[in-house]
């Protein structure tokens, strides 16, 4: 078992699934000869020359093509180079991918994976650091998954490729090369729709996903916090959240994204509806600012900082 980063883990998952199932194909901009702008698909075109395709520069066309491939019987994994460019694909995702099963009453299905790097952390040009995951979570028929480590990136991506429905796989760019961990060569999966309690605790439930999870884990020293890595945002794991909240009675939800209609809003409303009487303090949402994501120089001011997380932990305990 090797210690590898998330880029390598995703590459490994793709390689193994393509080896195992000849219906798995990769399409996207620069995913072939260049191996993807983050080198996620490095070496895959050499290994699978008939199943990796460098497409014309057309994001909506990439998703639409992948939908056609999926309904025909392939399992396409489409890459959108950055989340900010997925906005061009919303019509294909919302008007088609999400509802082909429903529209045809199950005759046609769309087993499609859309991978896209997302979030802050690499100081790129504008629209390369978006975290509008909540937008994607609003549409029934789509699943939204966010890995937080090399290990769960591999297991979740394999599940996503095998899933019979469209899955959007959001890869936190900050984490691509940040962490290395042991990732088995073996074929393992992490179920979509299940959250993971990554640290048990009695006093506070902290819910996070993707790169915010790491900021939370860096900040909880000295608190008896239970940390949940949500991993799947749609459909999210209501049971794991409720079990934890009923135990701790205090909740912090941390997201990088802007506050208004963010995914933390959904989770807070859900907890308030289902566990209000278990709460000892108001739910705290830690979010990005009510502003568009800044470019490099101001990037670090946007998302909740470690200090903000610690402040929230104190506040919820002192209530």
């Amino acid at each position: 078992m090797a210690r590898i980063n998330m880029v390598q883990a995703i590459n490994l998952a793709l390689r193994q699934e393509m080896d195992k199932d000849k219906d798995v194909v990769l399409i996207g901009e620069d995913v072939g000869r260049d191996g993807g702008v983050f080198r996620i698909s490095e070496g895959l075109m050499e290994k699978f020359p008939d199943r990796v395709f460098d497409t014309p520069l057309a994001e909506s066309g990439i998703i639409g093509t992948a939908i056609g491939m999926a309904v025909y019987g392939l399992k396409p994994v489409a890459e959108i180079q950055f989340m900010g460019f997925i906005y061009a694909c919303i019509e294909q995702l919302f008007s088609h991918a999400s509802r082909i099963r429903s529209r045809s009453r199950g005759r046609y299905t769309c087993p499609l994976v859309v991978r896209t790097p997302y979030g802050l952390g690499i100081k790129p040009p504008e629209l390369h650091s978006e975290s509008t995951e909540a937008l994607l979570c609003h549409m029934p028929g789509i699943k939204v998954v966010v890995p937080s480590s090399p290990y769960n990136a591999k297991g979740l991506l394999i599940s996503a490729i095998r899933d019979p429905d469209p899955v959007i796989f959001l890869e936190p760019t900050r984490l691509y090369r940040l962490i290395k961990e042991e990732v088995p060569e073996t074929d393992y999966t992490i179920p979509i729709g299940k959250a993971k309690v990554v640290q048990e605790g009695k006093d506070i439930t902290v819910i996070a996903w993707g790169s915010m999870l790491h900021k939370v884990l860096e900040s909880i020293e000295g608190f008896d916090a239970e940390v949940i890595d949500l991993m799947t945002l749609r459909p999210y794991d209501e049971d794991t959240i409720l079990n934890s909240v009923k135990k701790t009675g205090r909740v912090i939800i941390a997201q990088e994204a802007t506050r208004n209609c963010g995914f933390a809003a959904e989770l807070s409303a859900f907890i308030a509806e289902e566990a209000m009487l278990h709460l000892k303090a108001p739910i705290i949402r830690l979010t990005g600012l009510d502003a568009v994501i800044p470019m490099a120089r101001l990037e670090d001011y946007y998302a909740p900082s470690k200090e903000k997380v610690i402040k929230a932990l104190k506040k919820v305990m002192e209530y």
Partner: protein
Amino acid sequence: MPENIIERFEVKELKILDEKGNADTAILPNLSDNDLKKIFELFILSRQFDQRALQLHAEGRLGTYASILGQEASQIGSAYALEKTDWVFPSFREMGVYITLGYPIWMLFQYWTGDERGMKTPDDLSIFPVSVPVGTHMIHAVGAAFAAKIKGHKTASVAYFGDGGSSKGDFHESLNIAGVYKLPVVFICQNNQWAISLPREKQTAAKTIAQKAYSYGFEGIQVDGNDVFAVYKATKDALEKARAGKGPTLIECFTYRMADHTTADDASRYRSKEDVEKWKDKDPLLRLKLYMEKKGIWKEQYENDVKKKVIEFVDGEIKKEEAAGLPDKKDIISFTYKELSQRQIKELKLWQE
């Protein structure tokens, strides 16, 4: 340095059968008398379906419906050229295509009453459900053609759309990707001159829609969309080319929407009666009938017999649809994902309480 011409293109127009029922025998496609009768009967069936759908709408028994009147040759002629193994991606005004492919008529009525079950394509057909957002489904035909090519199948895909759809970015992305990968796909544009109230000349400044194909590196052809032989031949040729690995084709069927855009529209607000009147002489059924009469295949008695049979058949299909009853409300939830979510399980439980 002189200016050089580095690219030229020519756009062909194909007409075989004129308004008087005279056919150009040199290019007439090989259709037997039996084929001609089948095509004629599909015309009668499509018209009867269309008329009954409009009646049922007027009676409040069917929802908003998009009539195909005037476009039958474009739809029946092209669909008649398809093989069972081909994949078809229609928009919302393609009932003649569904009918030609043998889609159960009662299910089409079921769909238009507002019941998704009507779009559960029978297993032996590969036609896709109605696609509402204009032009956005063309790329699915491209993807299916791509998949067929990857899998080594001799399958072609067909996308149906209109002059309005040709203005969308999806049209560009679809034709562009199909051209780059030389995919086995046929783009069939039914240029019916109107996108709700917008006339064709305001849709594009190009002289034809067919010529747009040349910007994507493949051929486009304009055919008389009210000439069932021309549409059939152009489609058959394009499908053969696609299956032979020679890439996509754009066929512009030059036709006319004789009815309102849908039952929710009133075309008299934006087009004159005279404009519509002119196209009555170009009726696609009339010229087929005249041709068949000259060949001695059509007689009044034959048409009456066909009509009688079709009327009874369609009425039977309406009864069949009514007998199918209402869908289960659980269907709203059940087809979202393969597995129910935790939330959906709770929602279903609430209904049981």
